[in-house]
C-alpha cells in the first residue's frame, strides 16, 4: 500500500473556511475573533431555523400550551375556590406548568432533528458544536418566554395572582428562570433523543437537575408577587449563577454528547 502523508491540497472551489479548519495566515487574535463570529453566526442560524419550524408547525401552540393550561386548570380545581390558597400556590404552579411544558418542548425540538436524519447533518457539519447548542438553547428560551407569558396571563385570570410592585424584577426572574430551563433542557434533550426510552428519559434527566433553578424562580416569584423584595436579590443571583453554569457546561460538553 502506498504510504499515506498528510496532504492539505484543496481540490475544491472557492469557499469560506469553516470554523475549526486550520488556516494558513492571520494572527491568533484575528482567528479567535473570526471563530467567535462564526460561532455566533451558526448559533443564530440554528435558532432562526428552530423558531421558523415552530412558527410554521405551531407545535407549541397545539400541544404544549394546551397541556400547560389544562394542568393549571386541574390544579385550580384541586385546590378549590379559596383565593388565598390559590394566590399562595400560584407561583409554584406557574413554574411547574412551565417546566412540564418545557420538557415536551425540548423533546420535540430534538425529535425534529432526529426524524429526518438532520441530527447527523449537524454532527457532520464542520462547526463548533457548542454553536449548535447555543442556537438550540436560544430558540428554546424564546419559545419558553412566549409560553410563560401565556401561562402567566392564565394564572393571573384564574388564580388572581398579582403582578406586584416590581414588574421589572418579576420579568428578570422569568427571563433568568427560562434561560436556566432552556440551557439544561437543550443539553439533556439530545441525550433523551438518543436513549432507547426516548421521551420517558427526558423528565428523569431534567427534573432533578433543574431543581435549583425551579426553587429559586418560585421563591423569587412568590416574594415579588407578595410585594416583598428583601430576599429577591439572593434568589436572582442564584438563578444567574446556575444559568451561567448550565450554559457553560452545555457549550463545552454538547460536542461530546453529539459525537458519542
Amino acid at each position, binding site marked *: 500500500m502506498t504510504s499515506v502523508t498528510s496532504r492539505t491540497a484543496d481540490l475544491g472551489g472557492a469557499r469560506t473556511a469553516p470554523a475549526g479548519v486550520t488556516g494558513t495566515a492571520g494572527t491568533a487574535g484575528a482567528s479567535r475573533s473570526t471563530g467567535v463570529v462564526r460561532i455566533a453566526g451558526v448559533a443564530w442560524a440554528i435558532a432562526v431555523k428552530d423558531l421558523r419550524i415552530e412558527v410554521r408547525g405551531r407545535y407549541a401552540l397545539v400541544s404544549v400550551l394546551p397541556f400547560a393550561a389544562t394542568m393549571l386548570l386541574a390544579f385550580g380545581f384541586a385546590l378549590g375556590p379559596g383565593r388565598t390558597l390559590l394566590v399562595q400556590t400560584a407561583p409554584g404552579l406557574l413554574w411547574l406548568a412551565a417546566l412540564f411544558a418545557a420538557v415536551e418542548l425540548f423533546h420535540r425540538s430534538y425529535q425534529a432533528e432526529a426524524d429526518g*436524519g438532520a441530527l447527523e447533518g449537524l454532527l457532520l457539519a464542520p462547526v463548533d458544536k457548542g454553536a449548535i447548542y447555543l442556537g438550540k438553547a436560544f430558540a428554546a428560551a424564546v419559545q419558553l418566554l412566549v409560553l410563560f407569558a401565556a401561562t402567566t396571563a392564565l394564572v393571573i385570570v384564574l388564580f388572581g395572582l398579582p403582578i406586584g410592585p416590581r414588574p421589572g424584577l418579576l420579568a428578570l426572574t422569568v427571563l433568568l428562570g427560562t434561560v436556566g430551563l432552556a440551557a439544561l433542557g437543550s443539553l439533556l434533550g439530545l441525550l433523551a433523543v438518543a436513549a432507547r426510552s426516548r421521551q420517558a428519559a427526558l423528565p428523569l434527566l431534567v427534573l432533578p437537575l433543574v431543581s435549583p433553578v425551579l426553587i429559586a424562580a418560585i421563591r423569587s416569584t412568590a416574594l415579588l408577587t407578595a410585594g416583598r423584595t428583601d430576599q429577591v436579590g439572593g434568589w436572582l443571583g442564584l438563578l444567574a449563577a446556575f444559568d451561567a453554569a448550565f450554559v457553560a457546561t452545555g457549550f463545552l460538553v454538547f460536542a461530546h454528547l453529539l459525537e458519542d
Partner: protein
Amino acid sequence: MSLGEPLVRTRPPARPVSGTAVALRGVTRLFGALPGLVRATLHVDRGETIWLCGPNGSGKSTLLRIIATALSPTFGEGTVLGHDLVSGRIGIRARTDLLGHHFRLYEDLTAAENLRFTCTLHGLDPAGIHAALDSVGMDEVADVRTGGFSQGMRQRLALARCRLRDPDLLLLDEPYAGLDVDARVVVDDLLAGARERGRTILLASHEPPPPALIDRTVSIDGGRLTGITGTTGEADR
C-alpha cells in the same frame, strides 16, 4: 443540466489529480458484540470513483459512515484527505459529504431554506442555491416546504445539496434506491460532473452504476472487503 439529456455512455475525462483520498488500515467497527466492519484495509486515490457492492448488512454503509466520521472505528486507523480519521474529524467533514439513507431535510423549511441552512453550516456562498436546485430540476419548487415532497423529490434535493457543497470526497449510500429513470440520470450526472472536477467518489449500491462512471469495484460481505476489480489501488483482506 436538463433531465432529458441522455445518460453518460463514455467515461468522462477525470481531472488529473494525485495523492491519497482514503487510506484505511485494519479498521474494525463493532456494534456491541456484532461486527459491522472487520479489519478493512482500503486505499483510494484522489479522483477515483469506487463502487462498493455487497448484500444487505454487508458493511457498506458502516464503511461509508466511518469514512465520513459519522462513526468512529473501534479498532484500526486511517486518514481521509490527509486528516486522521479520529483527530482530524473537522478537517474531513469540511471536505466530505455523505448522502445516506436519510436525507437530512427539515420538513417545515422550504427547499431553498434547507439549502441555505447547509450553506451557513458549511460556510458556503448561498448564491449557488438556485443553480443547484435547477441542476436537479427542482428550482420551481424552491419555495415549497419539503414536508409535501415525495421520496424522489427529497432525494433530488439531497443531491442538490451535494452539488452545492461540491466536496472533495463524495460518499453516496444507495443513491439509486427508489428513484425513477429521470432521477437516476440526475445521480449519474452528479457522478459525471464530480469526476470531471477530479472529486473522489465512493458509491455503495446494490444496483451497478454505469460502468463508464466507475474506476474500481470493491466487494464487501459480512463486514469484510472480499475483492476488488480495477486498475489502481488495492484492498486487502
